[in-house]
């Protein structure tokens, strides 16, 4: 186990280096003028000042020097103040957000985290339940139904499904609005009496003992959760089904049946735990994918997470912000993937020998 974890840990610096190179490669597509937003708030209009900025921050230096400055920042010799440097969490200035990219992340990422936490439970629980039903009733009505369900689920683009949800549950029924919270709730949240403990709105509202705000927040999250759930159920159903079918064919299951165990116990106690091993990995990677900011879902529902921040910046061609956000997401995903892989090593001993 130790070797497995060590080997997996050794991959992390490689991935980190690779992702920074990948993102920096795209940064270097930009002109020096555009890149100056990495270090200064306002790109000077005046040509002379512009040249001074480009010179000061070495925006026409050789590429490896620029990469280094991009990583650790550059000290302004006049003031002795460090500007830029992604390793210090300075991702530059966001033109579309009118604030540092790091602040944008601080504002948006808790919302994405909140959505992930609430979405993953129904996704995994219901998805697994459906997959097991399909496998236990192999080729029966539940199986065929599940099949239709999953083909439809995989064929629906997120944004089409999301728009249809909005059409039905918002435009027609007025049940579940898009966005993050209603106006009255936002006013409370922005006021002095509100205390942010975790920055996750659902949990903070409970800690502030404001049940009305909790309900309001949840109402805004129903549609994104439903959209994410439906599209992921199809995948969970498929994986659980095929893994369960495989397990039900094993000899030890036949033995259990031959001993005369009731079918319920055979399925629930003997087959299910082993069948769920690949599903656990899938669940891990789904959490990772959700954390990465579900770009389209957040955009459709106007949900202020990190995914919609990326999409907004991209649509406005604010490339530097896009790349800053992407870099942050990449770093989060590398860590999250590591956690999933190590957890998988604990669950399934076979993987360690690989």
């Amino acid at each position, binding site marked *: 186990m130790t070797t497995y974890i060590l080997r997996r840990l050794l991959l992390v610096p490689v991935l980190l280096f690779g992702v920074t190179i990948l993102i920096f490669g*795209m940064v270097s*597509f930009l002109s020096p003028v555009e890149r100056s937003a990495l270090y200064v708030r306002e790109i000077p209009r005046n040509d002379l000042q512009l040249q001074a900025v480009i010179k000061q921050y070495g925006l026409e230096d050789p590429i490896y020097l620029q990469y280094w400055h991009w990583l650790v920042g550059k000290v302004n010799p006049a003031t002795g103040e460090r500007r830029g440097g992604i390793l210090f969490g300075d991702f530059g200035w966001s033109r579309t957000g009118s604030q540092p990219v790091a602040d944008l992340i601080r504002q948006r990422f808790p919302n994405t985290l909140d959505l992930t936490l609430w979405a993953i439970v129904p996704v995994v629980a219901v998805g697994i339940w459906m997959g097991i039903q399909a496998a236990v009733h192999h080729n029966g009505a539940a199986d065929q139904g599940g099949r239709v369900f999953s083909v439809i689920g*995989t*064929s629906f683009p997120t*944004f*089409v499904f999301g728009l249809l949800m909005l059409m039905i549950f*918002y435009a027609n029924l007025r049940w579940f609005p898009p966005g993050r919270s209603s106006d009255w709730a936002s006013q409370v949240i922005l006021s002095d009496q509100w205390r942010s403990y975790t920055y996750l709105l659902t949990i903070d509202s409970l800690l502030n003992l404001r049940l009305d705000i909790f309900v309001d927040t949840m109402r805004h999250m129903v549609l994104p959760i439903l959209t994410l759930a439906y599209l992921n159920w199809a995948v969970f159903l498929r994986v659980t089904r095929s893994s369960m079918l495989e397990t039900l064919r094993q000899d030890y299951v036949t033995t259990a049946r031959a001993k005369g165990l009731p079918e319920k116990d055979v399925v629930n106690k003997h087959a299910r735990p082993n069948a769920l091993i690949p599903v656990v990995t899938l669940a891990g990677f789904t959490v990772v994918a959700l954390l990465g*900011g579900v770009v389209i879902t957040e955009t459709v529902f106007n949900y202020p997470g990190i995914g919609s921040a990326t999409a907004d910046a*991209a649509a406005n061609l604010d490339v530097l912000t*896009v790349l800053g956000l992407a870099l942050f997401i990449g770093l989060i995903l590398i860590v999250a993937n590591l956690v999933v892989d190590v957890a998988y090593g604990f669950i399934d001993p076979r993987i360690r020998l690989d």
Partner: protein
Amino acid sequence: MAEIAIPKGGFGVTEAIPLRKIGPVERLLGPETYRIVVALLKTPVSILGFALIAFFIVVALAAPWIAPPLHPNNPYDIPRDGFRAQPQPMMSEWNREQPPLPAWWKPIMGTDQWVHLLGTSEGQYDLFYGIVWGTRTAFKTGLIVTFVTLIIGIVVGSVSAYYGGATDNIIMRGVDIMLTLPFILAALILAAVLTPKLGRSLLPATIALIAFGWMGYSRIIRGDILSVKQRDYVMAARVIGVKDSRILMRHIIPNAIFPTLVLASLAIGDVVLSFAALSFLGIGTPVGYADWGQTLSFARNWITDLSTYWYIVVWPGMTLVLFVMGWNLVGDALRDVFDPRMRGRGGA
């Protein structure tokens, strides 16, 4: 299918051997491919899938006849009936910029007045026209992206698998790095970087989908090659001194490539979906280009009024769903056919 060959006179060895009639088609395709084709043609699910795909192919080919363009040189520009923001309902009449009347309209409806069959979207873009010509955009991008990603995937995967060792390790770590970011996000950022350089066209999104789309193929083909590489005929070719490139091209790839080829051809649905997602997010084609994702994105400003303007979501949305579903249905049936455990159970 199986029948016993009756020996003419004599009692040869053939007496006990059951022979199957092998038709010319099977001889042409080889037994494995033939089995897959037959199984696919027998499954109702995949027949429905093929029917959907065929329907869209016909629409794409007949687009100039179904919805004649206003400017034959720029058929992908959706004709707009004025500039008002509010969408117009279905069957409302054309007022301005009316394209030629399609030939099939009068025999069916008996009038000369061409209408907005499916209504107009924000900015008076005709939905019917956009959907019909969007089919061409879908096939164009789908085919190009699939073809190029496949080629890149095959080249990278086969080089990696054939040379093994350090080369393999470096290439596969590169693949890991490329896979760190979620696909749509990665494609989105690259398209955003490229758009200011290349201008708004099909190009940025296409390049972005290609750049981050080939890794899956290279992994699959690498695995298949690693298993084919162990076979005796490869060793034999090496022993007699055949060049590396020739062994790879003539002996290994043809034997390893088939599953990848089939899977790739069915990935067109996913590619079109991703492309539509990018244009939905506002990256890629210029405004007014016949492209399903963009047509859908017009609906984003009308979310509160979708109970009235439902058609601006439902028609382009359903078109996209049916298109993707066609490929998925065939793919689903195919996955069963490929699954070795299903073999010998009457196909799918």
